Structure formats: structure tokens, C-alpha cells
């Protein structure tokens, strides 16, 4: 079974996704447990995969026994293992926290939510595992379509938001597909490693230029990189609480992984002006996202724009493409998934307890100290206060920016921190000291609190051990990403 670790996580979530509706027909209550169990099993498998990579080195897995470059390959290396653990782990936490909320929001249809969420996780895990460009597209679409359904599942403004998400997401996927098609026409191959070997010789071809640009823009849309982020604020504001626990934390990370893998490894884009454009776009995203987040009155919209800002950090790291910068970007994927997941879960719990999403009405004060404390820890990570994980990813990004001689990017990263301080202060201040109104307040359910505590502890704990984490996993991942991959 050890040899099959690359494919196990996505298989487990897929099986879970399909078993959940069947089980729900006979035992509806067990369905959510099954779903969370499947996600947890996938997370364990991902963890096993990462451990295996650290011990035995990267491996390629040929589906159907057909070796590349004709067969479809999956890749398990430090980067894909790491991002796989992030996606599966935080996804499990989100499902666990959202289970109770799903019962309240969807009633009898809750198993459908779980099934859709697992399908989305399958898509993300598939993106992370793929070693083949078209396979990435397939899983990109699997994840996207289930995401559209998830966002729409609450009705109301969520329907229109999901429609816009669908249009923009499909535009992005189509761009990506067109780009892949151009590359295929140029080289006759879809395998990432094969392309990485062949493309340098064809660097002047206009097909390559067009294909690369289309791929990058398509993935940037999926990643919600400013100014292509138009779908994100509405989708995350109007989706139901169980959905916002999952999608913001893991969705954009998978797309960012795909961008990192394809732009840097396959297309060898680390040295191009495009990389600097990406970094500067990220810098603008950081600042604009932060400014827009600071003036929001709706807590979820604030967090959504904050996501736009944080994805900018990742784009800066990917664009700089140095070892430190990439390590910082990858670490930021983990940090942001943990912190944003905790924030959305916490705010979602408050909404389900009867609060309104407006900042002025969000207060629960000292009545729910654990919830409040976990939100503060997540906020510290977003701002980048040590020892939370966010500080360390910021440090590595700064190191990368300084090493590349880009004071403007340094300034953008630090300005982003200050802006994050402003909007996180507003949010946590509203939760701790805001108006709680005359409504009685339901207690936060135990599983939600447990998940929040785990996420908060992970944010602090992983920050403290971030040194070994970076040295043993992320630096090798960064080096591998930019090295030319052999056939």
C-alpha cells in the first residue's frame, strides 16, 4: 500500500463522497460521521505520503500501470505532499466543524452537503497530486463544479454569487484548457516532467507564449489573484456557514499550488519578466485587499477581502521564485489555511448562534472566551505576530524580497501587515466588545470549539517548529520547484 500513497488521499475522499449518499438513505445520522471519517482517512494518507517522501524521496505514480509520458502520472514530492497534507488536514477540520452547522442549515439534505464537500476535496487533492496537465484540468473542474453547488446551496444571494462564480470560474478553466491545448499542439505531450524537459528548446515559439499566458491567467482566476478576484468576495460572503468553513481555507491553495508547479517547474517561468509581474500583482493585491478589507462592515466580506490580500503574499513569493521566497509562500499556504479556516469557522459559529454578520452586531464578549481567544490567535497569525505561523512565512518572504533587491515588495509585505492589524483589530474587537444585542446566545457546539482550539494550537505550535518544517520540507520543495525536472 505504501507504493500507492500518491493516489490514496483522493480515492478516500472520492469513496467517501459516493458512500455518503448511499449510507444516508438508510442511516442519515451516520452520514456526517462517515464523511468526516473519510476526510480524516485522506488526511492520514496524505500525512503518510509526506512522511514517505521525506524518507524515500519523490516518486511518480503511473495510473493504470502506463508509464509517462503517454500515461497519466501522479507526482508525490515534498511540495505536493506538503500541500496535500494542508488541504486534507484543514479540510477535515472544516468538515468536522461544519457538520453540526450543516444539520441546522440543510436539515435532511445535510448528507448532500457532505458529499459535495468531499467531492470538492477530491478535486483539490487531485490537483495537488497530478503530474499531468490535463489531469489538473479535470480535477480543477471537479472541484469547481462542486464549489459552485456548495456556494449556491444556501439560496438567496448565494445563488447569484454562485452564478457569477460559475461564469468566472468557467472562463478561467477554459483559458487553462486552451493553454494546455496549445502546449499539446506544440509538443504532443501533456506530462509535466516531459514538458519541462522539452519546452526550454522551444522557448521562442509563439504557441508557447500564448499557451503559457492562458494557463497563468486561468489559474490566477482560480486563485483569486487581484484583479481577477471578482468572484471571491460575493461567493464567500453569501455562502452558508458550513461552506465558508471549507472553501476559503483550502480552495485557493490548490490553485496556487497548480500555479507554482506549472509556472515554475513546467514552464520554467522563474526567470521571466512574467514572474516579476506576478510578484508585483501580488503586492498590489496585498495592499488593495487590505484596504478594502479594512472598510468592510460585514465580517465575512472582511475575511474574503483579507483572503485576496493574503493570496497576494503567496503570489509575491511565487513571483520572486528564490528559495527563501518560495519557502515563505508555501509556509504561507499552511498558515493562511489554518488561520482563515479558524476565522471563518468562528464567524460561522457566531452566525449560527444567532448573530448577524454585520460587525456592529457580532459581539459575544467574554461570554465565549475560548472562541474569542482562538479568533485572536488566528488574527495574530494573519498580522504576523510571533510565534504564530504567519510571522515566519512573512520572515521568509521578506528574506526573499531583500535577496532579490526589491524594496518595494518589502514595503508591500510590511504594509500588508499593518493593514491586517487594522482589519483584524476591528473584527476581534467586534467579537470581544461589540454589541451583543438582546438576543439570547446559543453556546458554541463542542466539536466546533474543539476544532478551533486545534487550529489555534497548530498555528502557534507549528510556528514554533517552523524551523525544521522549513528546512526539511519546504526548502527541498522550493529547490525542486525551480530545478529543471528530468524525464
Amino acid at each position, binding site marked *: 500500500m505504501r507504493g500507492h500513497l500518491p493516489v490514496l488521499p483522493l480515492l478516500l475522499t472520492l469513496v467517501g463522497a459516493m458512500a455518503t449518499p448511499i449510507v444516508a438513505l438508510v442511516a442519515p445520522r451516520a452520514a456526517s460521521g462517515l464523511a468526516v471519517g473519510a476526510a480524516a482517512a485522506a488526511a492520514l494518507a496524505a500525512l503518510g505520503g509526506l512522511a514517505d517522501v521525506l524518507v524515500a524521496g519523490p516518486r511518480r505514480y503511473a495510473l493504470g500501470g502506463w508509464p509517462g509520458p503517454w500515461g497519466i502520472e501522479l507526482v508525490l514530492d515534498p511540495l505536493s505532499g506538503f500541500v496535500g497534507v494542508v488541504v486534507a488536514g484543514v479540510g477535515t477540520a472544516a468538515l468536522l466543524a461544519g457538520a453540526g452547522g450543516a444539520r441546522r442549515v440543510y436539515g435532511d439534505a445535510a448528507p448532500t452537503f457532505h458529499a459535495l464537500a468531499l467531492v470538492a476535496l477530491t478535486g483539490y487533492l487531485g490537483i495537488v497530486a497530478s503530474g499531468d496537465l490535463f489531469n489538473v484540468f479535470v480535477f480543477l473542474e471537479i472541484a469547481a463544479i462542486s464549489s459552485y453547488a456548495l456556494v449556491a446551496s444556501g439560496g438567496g*444571494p448565494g445563488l*447569484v*454569487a454562485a452564478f*457569477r462564480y460559475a*461564469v*468566472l470560474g468557467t*472562463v*478561467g478553466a477554459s*483559458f487553462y484548457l486552451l493553454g494546455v491545448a496549445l502546449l499539446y499542439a506544440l509538443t504532443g505531450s501533456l506530462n509535466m516532467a516531459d514538458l519541462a524537459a522539452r519546452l526550454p528548446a522551444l522557448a521562442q515559439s509563439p504557441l508557447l*507564449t*500564448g499557451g*503559457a*499566458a*492562458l494557463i497563468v*491567467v486561468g489559474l*490566477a*482566476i482560480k486563485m483569486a489573484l487581484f*484583479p*481577477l*478576484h*471578482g*468572484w471571491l*468576495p*460575493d461567493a464567500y*460572503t*453569501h455562502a452558508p456557514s458550513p461552506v465558508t468553513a471549507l472553501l476559503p481555507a483550502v480552495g485557493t491553495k490548490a490553485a496556487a499550488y497548480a500555479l507554482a508547479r506549472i509556472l515554475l517547474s513546467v514552464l520554467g517561468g522563474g526567470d*521571466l*519578466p*512574467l514572474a516579476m*509581474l506576478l510578484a508585483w500583482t501580488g503586492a498590489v493585491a496585498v495592499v488593495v485587499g487590505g*484596504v*478594502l478589507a*479594512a*472598510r468592510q462592515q460585514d465580517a465575512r*466580506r472582511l475575511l474574503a477581502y483579507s483572503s485576496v490580500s493574503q493570496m497576494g503574499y503567496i503570489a509575491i513569493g511565487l513571483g520572486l521564485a528564490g528559495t527563501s521566497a518560495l519557502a515563505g509562500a508555501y509556509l504561507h499556504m499552511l498558515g493562511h489555511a489554518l488561520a482563515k479556516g479558524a476565522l471563518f469557522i468562528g464567524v460561522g459559529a457566531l452566525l449560527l448562534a444567532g448573530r448577524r454578520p454585520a460587525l456592529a452586531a457580532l459581539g459575544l464578549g467574554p461570554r465565549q472566551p475560548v472562541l474569542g481567544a482562538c479568533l485572536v490567535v488566528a488574527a495574530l497569525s494573519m*498580522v504576523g*505576530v*510571533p*510565534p504564530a505561523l504567519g510571522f*515566519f512565512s*512573512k*520572515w*521568509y518572504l*521578506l*528574506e526573499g524580497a*531583500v*535577496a532579490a533587491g526589491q524594496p518595494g515588495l*518589502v514595503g508591500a509585505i*510590511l504594509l500588508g*501587515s*499593518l493593514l491586517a*492589524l*487594522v482589519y483584524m*483589530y476591528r473584527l476581534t*474587537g467586534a467579537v470581544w*466588545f461589540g454589541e451583543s444585542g438582546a438576543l439570547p446566545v446559543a453556546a458554541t457546539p463542542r466539536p466546533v470549539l474543539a476544532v478551533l482550539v486545534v487550529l489555534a494550537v497548530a498555528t502557534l505550535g507549528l510556528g514554533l517548529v*517552523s*524551523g525544521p518544517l*522549513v*528546512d526539511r520540507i519546504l526548502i527541498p520543495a522550493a529547490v525542486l520547484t525551480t530545478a529543471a525536472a528530468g524525464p
Partner: protein
Amino acid sequence: MSELAHPAWPLLAGAAVAAVAPLPVRRLVALLAPLVALVLAWRLPDGAAVGGALMGLPLIALRADALARVFAIVFALAAGLGALYGLEPARQRLLAAGLAAAAAAEGIVLAGDWVTLYLAWETLAVASFVLVTDGRTARAWRSALGYLLVHALGGALLLAGVVWHLASGGDPRIGPLALDGPGWLVLLAFAVNAAVPPLHAWLTDAYPESSPAGTVLLSAFATKAAVYALLRVFAGQEVLVWAGTAMALYGVVYAVLATDIRRLLAYHIVSQVGYMVAGAGIGTALAVNGAAAHAFCHIIYKALLLMGAGAVVHATGRGRLPDLGGLAPHMPATLALYMVGALSISGAPLLNGFVSKSLVLAAAEATHRDTAYWLLTLASVGTFLSTGLKLPWFTFGGAPAARPAAALPRPMLAAMTLAAALCLLLGVAPGLLYALLPFPVAYAPYTAGHVLESLQILAGTTLAFLLLKETLHGAASRTLDVDVLYRAAGRLLRDGLAPALARVADAAEALSYALVARQLPAPDFRLGVPIGYAVLITLLTLGLTLLAW
């Protein structure tokens, strides 16, 4: 030397316990933790303990020499004084944040490498922020946010400077820095914490808004840790002499104009720190000794002054001179102890200010910096005028305007007495202080010349005050200080830039609906970003990417 000997440990443990423990335990811990820290700081041997690594850089969490030790000792003392002062009512927030701030300050002065310094620096900012909120008013919270933002900015400058320094191959151990790119960033960061104008508004804005004990604790750490950092890293940089002199005068001018008693004293912090910054700039052994000695004494007598002012605020509920008066018969002990502090800060003989301030002045004189010498002396005049004459006259003397509501808690009086005793002790036996200083001291404070000069200044200022006192009795007014600029900038950002961005988005939406969606009815609810606009942007980006490839 074991890392366990770090004085920050008992303070951190104390902070953790104080945050959650019941009242009697809190009281015990509040007094015990600083005491243990003081013993540890006193007994620190010279040397460094390397422990662990972070991000590939070695962490030297404990590096002690005479300069670090003198600051470590006085921080522990200050923590004890502040905790004693706040022992009644021993609020969790006050004690936990105060002890944590002390621990962070210890961390800063004993840090041997840049990463540890940065981590402790940020911790101090957060702990101080919490201390400001101990005022528990809406104004306190607003000032606290301003405090946090400014210190976050300073922290960002420090981070940028440190990362740049390390990335360009700089020594990870703390040592003198040249004024190149990273050096300027670090210097600016230190300047923010040292409250060098125009970066000082956080201090004068936030310190008066905290609770009485909170202000005492706040005053001890942030600025003096920055002074230590300047002494360690930028000693001898000429720009600091002028910055310090300007600070000393700036603070005094605004203090003379101030009407809130704690704000008046806060401006004095700016002024006195100016002496220390100037000393750091002069950089000779005498100057460094002077700056360190001045920091030591300043922490003690400033705590005493703020304790006195805080006692007035606590007893009467008011803090502004126009609302106060005639308290002398009701609070005689407070008046007496306050005057000890006031005379100390003014450099009166037999008190500790005399033995420390004169060191800096002597250093200026010895290096022939006559302008600086006279300007600093002028600042002394203003100091005595506002702290020693104006404040007590209009608070304790004059027509009665306020009556104390209740007797002062015993711990407050005890803390003030202890501080006053320390001022006196160090004043009559300066050798005790001089033994702690980094360089051997060949200076004798009690010469006829020095004593006469000091008495002349005091007498002259008293005369001037008696002649001008009606003019100085401030009406209700607010002096304009640079925080006006900060608020304007913040307003510009919030109310200008963000809505401007939103208006751009709205205009694009209208345009796109006109171009793209004319046939479709607009949706019922306005969502954030319209589709047509988004698709247009996407195509533009595609073009740009094609060009950039």
C-alpha cells in the same frame, strides 16, 4: 551560564499566573516575581548563553554585561514598584500585562542576537498595548489602537532592517551598526520606541489614558529599552545628539503648556529620554555612563511622579489642572512624596536626579558640545518649572476645587515611599549607582560648583514661576501636537482612499452594464463585483501577461 538564569522567566511565569489565578495568589505573585527577577538580574555574570536556533539563525537569548545588567536591574525594580502600586485592586489585566511587559523588556536588554531582540520588541508592544487598555474607557481603547499601530510600524521597520542586515551577510549578534540602509531602518525603529519627535505622539496620547498603575508600568519599559538599544547599537552617532537635544526641549515646551497632569509628565518622559538619547549620541564612556545612570534614576523618579499624579487621579477622579486644586491638606503624604520625585527630576542635590543628569551634562561639556550643554540646561529649567512648580502648585495648592473621595490604598502609599527612599538613597550614596555602570566613573557629583549650579537653577526657576504663575494656569485648551497629523492621515486613508477605490469599482460596474448587459435587467440585489467588469479585466490581464511573457 544557564539560560534559566534569565530574569524574564520569573516575570513571564508571574504574568501567566496573574492572568488566571485568584486574588490572593495574584497579589503574592505580583510581588514575588519582580523580586526573583531582581535577584537574578543582580547576580547575572558576564557572558552569553546560546540556545536553539530559529530560521537557521542562532538564538542568543541571554547576553549579559554591565550595560545590560544595569538596565535589567532597574526593569525588575520598576516591575516591583508598579506591581506594588497596583496591588489594590490587583486587576488581572494590569498585573499580567505589566509583568509580561517587564519580561519583554528584560528580553530586549539581554538579547544577544537580532531575532531575539525583534521577538522581545514585538512582545513589549503587545503587552504595552494591553496595559493602555487597562484604562477601560473608550478613549483608552482608541489610544491603545493608535499605540499598537505606531509600534507595529516601528516593529515593521525593525523587521525590515533586521532581515536586510542578515540577508546582506550581517552579524546575527547584536552590535554596533553603520548608518547604511539597514542601519537607518533599525535606527528609525528605535526612534519610534524612544518617542523621538515627531514619532512620539503614541506616548503622550496613550500614557495618560491608562489606569494610574498602568501608566506607571508603561512608563518604565518601552522608552528605556529603546535607549538601551541606542546605546548598544548606535552609540556615537552624531545625529542622536541633536535629536536628543531637540527632544529635551520639545518635551519641556509642551509640558509647560499641558493641562492634564499625566500628559504633562508624559511630555517629560520625552524630554528626559532626550538627555539619554543625546548621551548615546555623544558616545564617550562618560556619556554612556550618564545615559545609563539617567535611565536608571529616571525610571525610579518618573514612577514616583506618575504614582503621585495617579494617586491624585485615583482619589479625585480628575486629572486636569483646571479641575484640581487645594489638595494639600487632604493628601499631605502624596504631596511630600511627589515633591521628592519632582526635585529628583529637576536635579536637586541629595536626590538621584542630581547624580545622573549631571553626568550627561558633564559629557557634553567634556566633548566641547557647548550648544547641546546649554540647551540641555535650559531644558532643566523648564523641567523644574512644570514638574516641580506648576503641577504641584495648581494641584495641591491654590483654591480648592476637588476633594478626594477616599483614602489612598496602602499599597499605593507604600510604593511611593519605597520609590522616594530609593531616590534619596541613590542621591546621598551615588557610589551604589556608579558601581553598576558600564565604565568606571571618575566623576564626583558633589562638588561645590555642581551643587551651586543646581541650586541656582532651582532658585531662578522658582522666582520666574512666582512671577508668571497666573499665565501658566492653563485654561481648558488642547495643545496641537503631531498626533493631529496622524489622525488626519488615518482619516484620509479610511475615508478617502478606500471609498475612492470603491467609487472606481462602481463606475466600472456602471460602464460594464452599459456595454455588456444592456439587454438584461439588473439583479435585485447589488453584489460586489459585476460580471462584465470582471470579464473585461480578465481579458486585459491576459493581454498584459502575453506581453510580459
